[in-house]
């Protein structure tokens, strides 16, 4: 049984483009200070940043919950929003429903969820159209893919 070392929860707001990424930066600093392996930090922070951008771009609001144990980092991003109708397509690289405004931000090229999955040791995506989406990612601290 793993031991929980740290747990934090953050609120994410729709269309708050200027602040999107702040939480990831804060988590990066926190993990660095704890002496976590830099490759693990990088994977965690990519997951958090892509998740932040997804909520900011597509959802009405969301929560990012971060749990560090002595074995892994767990990240859950739950949003209230339009949901995803076709989960398989949403996980295909290059498939996107982004608007031009989102693409001008440098995102919305169909890489977000695939990037989250690529950087996770375990990954789960659940969604209900008209209700919202929950992404769960777990990244092991031993750095093995």
């Amino acid at each position: 049984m793993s031991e929980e070392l740290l747990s934090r929860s953050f609120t994410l707001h729709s269309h708050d483009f200027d602040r999107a990424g702040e939480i990831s930066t804060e988590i990066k600093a926190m993990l660095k200070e704890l002496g976590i392996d830099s490759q693990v930090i990088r994977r965690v922070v990519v997951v958090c940043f892509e998740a932040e951008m997804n909520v900011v771009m597509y959802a009405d609001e969301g929560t990012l919950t971060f749990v560090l144990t002595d074995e892994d980092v767990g990240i859950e991003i739950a949003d209230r929003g339009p949901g995803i109708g076709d989960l398989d397509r949403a996980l295909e690289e290059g498939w996107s429903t982004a608007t031009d405004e989102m693409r001008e931000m440098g995102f919305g090229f169909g890489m977000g969820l695939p990037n989250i999955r690529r950087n996770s040791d375990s990954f789960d995506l659940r969604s209900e159209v008209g209700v919202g989406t929950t992404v769960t990612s777990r990244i092991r601290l031993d750095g093995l893919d």
Partner: protein
Amino acid sequence: MKLAGVIALMGCETLSAAGDDVDVEAVVASDGMSEILAFSRPHALMLTGLTNIQSVRTAVVADVSAIVYVRDKRPEQKVLDLAVQNGIPIFVTSLGMFDSCGILYEAGLEGVM
């Protein structure tokens, strides 16, 4: 290769200075931030034409050595402030993306994707 050498080759203007001994091990060039997050590796030089705040956030997350904005595109002050706060050196070149990549490739640097 040292960052100072790369910057000289590209005729860059410094917007946020780097330390003396920063290494560049590869180049990641894109206006798509998710592509940079997917393929970059630590100590890569990030070339982009995207000058918004997300370019700096991406640089921080991807652990790049520095950002070079191409085609003489300049970020707003709040973007520069965030870069300084996070220790990300920022440069601007009048070269376009294609020419920038060509010069860096000729100098022996390789792309990450």
